[in-house]
């Protein structure tokens, strides 16, 4: 057995690292991007998902430690995210308040609150979510450990499909799309813009909080002030990449999760020289994406018409 694992060529180590990274690392991306997708479809931008992520992670850890159950911790994280997003929903409903600035303020505030109340939990070992051993078919421990999957991964995939169905075949989904694409038409139909958008922002916050919970309750599986790699900040870019489609968010999350794993995988395989630069890869990728897909006069395909117009 041992000879098998050491005979594994480094390239496979890197590939497995990336595969594992995709499975583990894509989950926060998936949840924040689905949450932001829902929010943006209704016409609002929430740049504060980083704060939501951090607060969700911290509260999830605290709740799990207090109740002994990781799943309750996940719910707790989601609710924390929802509460923070509620501030965003309220503030941005006031006149002359910028969506973008509010998001950044919330990220600052949410992060601060998370760090402050999270101090006692830094050394804590919370109960973690169960891992589904997708690699059980292999004898190689490396493969087995790389393919351990959290249940939130599958729930997330299901959520992506559910969100797509929601937008297509439910009354509320149509209302959300109308509110985001042409607010005055939605108003003419008697749709309450404030109600729809608030619900979308709150739901987005809940999903972001769940994404954060995954960080502290699965991978890396504890709370500390560096637990986030900026997934919340990248949510907006992910949604652009996904062309505001839920399934697109799935692919975007997988891509980014994989990219984020390249640095650590290479370092683990002994190529540590460019560690920092590889860690910058997801951000650089997002930037490249934004440059490639944006265009001066035209609106991006799929972008809700009322986005960023403050109506």
């Amino acid at each position, binding site marked *: 057995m041992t000879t098998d694992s050491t005979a594994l060529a480094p390239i496979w180590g890197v590939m497995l690292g990336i595969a594992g990274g995709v499975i583990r690392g894509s989950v926060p991306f998936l949840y924040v991007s689905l949450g932001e997708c829902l929010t943006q479809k209704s016409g609002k931008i929430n740049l504060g998902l980083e704060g939501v992520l951090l607060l969700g992670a911290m509260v999830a850890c605290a709740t799990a430690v207090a109740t002994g159950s990781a799943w309750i911790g996940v719910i707790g994280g989601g609710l924390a995210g929802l509460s923070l997003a509620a*501030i965003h929903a309220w503030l941005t409903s*006031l006149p002359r308040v910028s969506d973008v600035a509010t998001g950044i*303020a919330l990220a600052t505030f949410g992060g601060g609150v998370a*760090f402050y109340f999270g101090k006692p939990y830094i050394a804590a070992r919370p109960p973690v979510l169960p891992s589904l051993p997708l690699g059980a078919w292999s004898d190689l421990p490396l493969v087995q450990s790389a393919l351990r999957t959290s249940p939130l991964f599958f729930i997330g995939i299901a959520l992506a499909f559910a969100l797509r169905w929601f937008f297509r075949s439910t009354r509320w989904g149509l209302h959300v799309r109308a509110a985001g694409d042409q607010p005055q038409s939605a108003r003419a139909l008697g749709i309450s813009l404030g109600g729809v958008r608030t619900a979308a922002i709150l739901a987005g916050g809940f999903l972001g909080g769940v994404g954060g919970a995954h960080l502290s309750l699965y991978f890396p599986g504890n709370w500390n002030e560096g637990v986030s790699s*900026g997934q919340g900040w990248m949510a907006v870019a992910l949604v652009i990449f996904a062309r505001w489609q839920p399934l697109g968010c799935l692919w975007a999350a997988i891509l980014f999760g994989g990219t984020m794993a390249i640095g650590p995988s290479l370092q683990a395989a002994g190529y540590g020289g460019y560690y*920092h630069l590889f860690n910058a890869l997801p951000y650089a990728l997002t930037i490249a994406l934004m440059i490639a897909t*944006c*265009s001066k006069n035209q609106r991006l395909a799929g972008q809700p018409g009322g986005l960023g117009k403050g109506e």
Partner: protein
Amino acid sequence: MTTSPAAAPTPASSPWGSRLNAVLAGAAPSIIALLAAVLLFGLFCFSQGASPLAVFASINKAAFGSWYSWQNTLVRAAPILLAALCTALPARTGLFVIGNEGALVLGGLGAVLAGLATQTLSPVLALLLMALAGGTAGGLWIMAAGALHHYRGVNPTILTLLMNYVAIALLDHVVEGPLRDPASLNKPSSRALVDSHLLANFSGTNIHPGILIGIVCCLLAWWLFTRTPFGFASSVVGGNPRAAALSGLPVARIVLTATFLGGAAAGLAGMIEVAAVHGRANDSLHVGYGYAGFLVSFVARHHPLGLIPVSLLLGGLLASGGILQRTHHLSDATILVFQGIVFLCILFSESLRGRLPGLRGVVTKS
């Protein structure tokens, strides 16, 4: 459209009177917001078992209570002030940039490279070159974002946010790799600058010239953006790009200039941190001065002169982190919470603008 509401009666024909009225009307919501933030923060302290009054007294003491405190405050306020220009200047052309941190870091990196390359030159020349290098590095960085926004329509806020991470990664890579000082084992750093190339403190004090440089930059920025044709043009660009295009204004040139100048200021902050505080480049460059600068600019509503008092306030706040921890057992995250509260209150106050009775003076560009 309704006709304009009767403006608050301006003191008869006194230009200073009406200008004062305008400044007050502009500043009032911000001042109210700050007071509200102080109140909310006091409640927070109270909920954590600390007496709000005692906490504020401590902050005051640590920030402004003694000459020693003042020095602490001024040393922190300097990079924040310069970094704040990185948001304030592009904001006047309608761009909201949060890349202060990245520009500062790259400015420090550029300065160190220049400093290490000019070890044999005279100190004055070397410092000038370092300033030039730092400013140019930061300026080009933010100008790139400005160009991408102008020519490709990329959202500058998200772009510069992401660029921060790239800049920090670049710094970490360079400092741990090519530029690494082999003697710095615990904390990877670049090689140190020659002593003569360091920016000395004012004699007899612990303050380096950074704060003075910052104030001068703010004054120059104020003049440029409110008292020159260029400043007028940039407020047109920021107010309505379509009207700017209609008037034939060179929008690209204005946006690129504003972003370059803003980034250069932040880069200069980085240079000063390297030359006056650390003497080398390492990850002490990204401690959040950039993000603090962003907040300061918002509180000051992007007015170059308003940045000065707000930076002092925030510098004082940051200087009191230690005392809060030691005396009141409030962790360093408390400062972050306070900043967040301030930020949210300022945003809320924007919605009150123009609705405050009695101070409804004339609100034009500040």
